[in-house]
């Protein structure tokens, strides 16, 4: 049954890794702005080839945005 020490150690290590990841991400300011990244991710590649088709999506996006603000 001494395997329980190993298991406990592993579970602890995993938990602590996630805990450290959390602290580091807070420290880097990843939680400071929780809104802009959600808009920014939709911009990708638009600059290279502006597509007309995406306009409608962005209109909706904008409407939501205006409601929030």
């Amino acid at each position, binding site marked *: 049954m001494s395997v329980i020490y190993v298991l406990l150690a592993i579970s602890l290590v995993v938990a602590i890794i996630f*805990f450290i990841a959390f602290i580091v991400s807070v420290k880097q300011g990843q939680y400071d702005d929780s809104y802009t990244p959600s808009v920014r991710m939709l911009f990708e590649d638009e600059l290279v080839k502006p597509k007309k088709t995406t306009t409608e999506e962005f*209109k909706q*996006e904008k409407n939501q945005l205006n409601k929030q603000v």
Partner: protein
Amino acid sequence: MKVTNCYHCGDSCERQLISFDEKSFCCTGCKTVYEIFSSNDLSHYYELQGAAGTTPKAIEGKYDFLDNEEIISKLTEFNDGNIQIINLYIPTIHCSSCIWILENLNKLNNHITNSQVDFPKKTIRITYKQEDFSLKDLVLLLAKIGYEPYISLEDFEGKKKVADRSLIYKLGVAGFAFGNVMFLSFPEYFDLGSSAASGGEYWLNKYQDLFRWMMFLFSLPVVFYAGWDYFVSAYKGLRAKLLNIDVPIALGILVLFLRSTFDIAFDLGSGFFDSLTGLVFFLLLGKFFQQRTYSFLSFERDYKSYFPIAITRLNTSGKEETVPVQEIVKGDRILIRNEEMIPVDGTLVYGNAQIDYSFVSGESEPVLKETGEQIFAGGKQLNGVIEMIALKSVSQSYLTQLWGNAVFKTDKANSFQNLTDSIGKRFTIAVLSIAFTATIFWLFYDPSKAMNVFTAVLIIACPCAIALASPFTLGNMLRIFGKKKFYIKNTQTIEQLAKIDTAIFDKTGTITTTQKSTAHYEGMPLTPEEESILKNTIRASNHPLSRSLYDLLKEQNIITLDEYEEHVGKGLESSKNDISMKIGSANFVGKTNTDNVLDTSIYISSNNDYKGRYVFQNQYREGLSAVFKNMSETLNLAILSGDNEGEKERLETLLPKLTPLYFNQKPETKLEFIKSLQDQGKKVLMVGDGLNDAGALAQSNVGIAISENINVFSPACDAILDATKFQQLYSYILASKKAIRIIKMSFMLSLLYNCVGLYFAVTGQLEPVIAAILMPLSSISIVIFTTIMTNFIGRKLP
């Protein structure tokens, strides 16, 4: 009539229409921005959101101070002589197009390497190479595309604020420990009676100590890091001879920890580590929930956020030099450009001063000053370049002096005992007396259990649910009010608001709108030709009064005037066929004896014969009478106005009878007035808007700033109310009263839980598992109760 809207900014192109690239624009500024964007393949900007742009303003010379190395080094976040990083506040950021264009700045200028927008804060962080490029160029580029950054004295003086994330860390630590401790106490939950003596589960007994000591280890950071603030606060409270709510909480945490450690050390039981970590986690969660801030608003503005960093001084040899405003001394000759703020009191020595004091008084009508007259700090020059001689230094000026008052240095939060703390005192006394009575009883009855009962009472009576009631109720109300455009600084303000018995209002800008949109005509009727010339004349003028009047006059065909001339600061002159008209001030049109100087009017003469005048009236906010009538039922009301008595009679008819009206009030007298009311034991609400109300807002129990546009700054205050919601003010006050009632109901509910727990504790039957169930149950039910109730209130709010 079909109205064409500007492709760039969306404003109507009624006054001026510029066609370019098959699109219409309202001014050359908008057209230029479009040209910049389209020539750089950035026209996608307009596809993201139609007409998203802002018209760029003329800024010539305004940013010359950015050439100053010292100023640059104070403003930049990082500067190694090659690369500079700066954080700029851009008030015009408002949609996804803004984010997109600002994050693609590197396409416009290859010196910019990176730019990142923080939308909620309306800031942009730009990294750029300094070589052949400067901060000034960057700011000019931004201004050119309609995103002029706002750089104020505050940025210059203020230390770089470091975001306080300690609560998130503490919450993380407590949550992490809570989860792990729960996990480790699972075996004990399922196998309650299995001690080695009674022959329980073999492996559980063997590893029992390991599990328990691990729980102990996890609880260490919770007690000594995450929960440390409670000990500090309790200690501070005790030293100030105050029994605040943190005293029983700290006592509970301490007893939980010591008793649990004692239990596992002497193998008496599993301890209460799960309850301990859970308790701290829930308490911190409450704190976190309460800590809602509106990052795009600031409640702590003083004159520094309005004032420019540097100003142009003319030295003795007549050369211009840029100096920081603090260095201005009495006798300096200063140059104020168009749209620049006057930083000190002084005498006008050159130029046509047309000064907008709206920052100071809320009065939108610019004031004309002639050479030799005094001008005051805080005004904005609207018409060309002026020169003035400083009479005082910045901090001694009429307006800025107000900030020397002690009221700006005291923190309102410290002088107010909130509802939770006031109940904390009675609660602590009750808990301690129950604990001692029960212990004394058990000492006689069964001394071995006495200590057990004493600690159990303190553990179970720990007022977790009470401490949660207020943060969750008020935190949620804060959010609800925020959705209704009533932005409150902190939860304490809601408690204060509920206690208000007197409400004082400023006049201009607070109960009146800033747009003067009603006017009536007095004098001889105008002929149709004259009306047509009048409308066409003021069409070309950018003066705010002309614009207002233009919108009020009925439609006329556009005609070409034979002559048109604008006399700056005086009026307009035009002629068509045989009619020549003068429109403007009384002197300008040749009317000498003005009967009522208190009004704002536009005088009109035709062929040098005085015809009549348009008198502008303050337009009171819609529903003003109703708001005052409702409020007067429970509150004492008064008006404190910095203006003259010109509107007295109109106000008397609008407001409930006997509402005290005070005119010609200076900023200091407003402050003193509030103070004298407070000395009489009144709880005063001040509603104002301009910097001249700042003293009164700070002195009052609750200071609400009314704002037509929340992106434009309002003075330091406790809450900002969007002007469109002015009519709802009273219902918001009532809602905060209801919120307090909810907190009181939650107190009753949590006391009920405490009674149940106390029964177990006093009778000596408190098992760790009971505590582990009761504690989260009470906390969660309080959270659910308050959330449902506050949402119910919120739904009824208009």
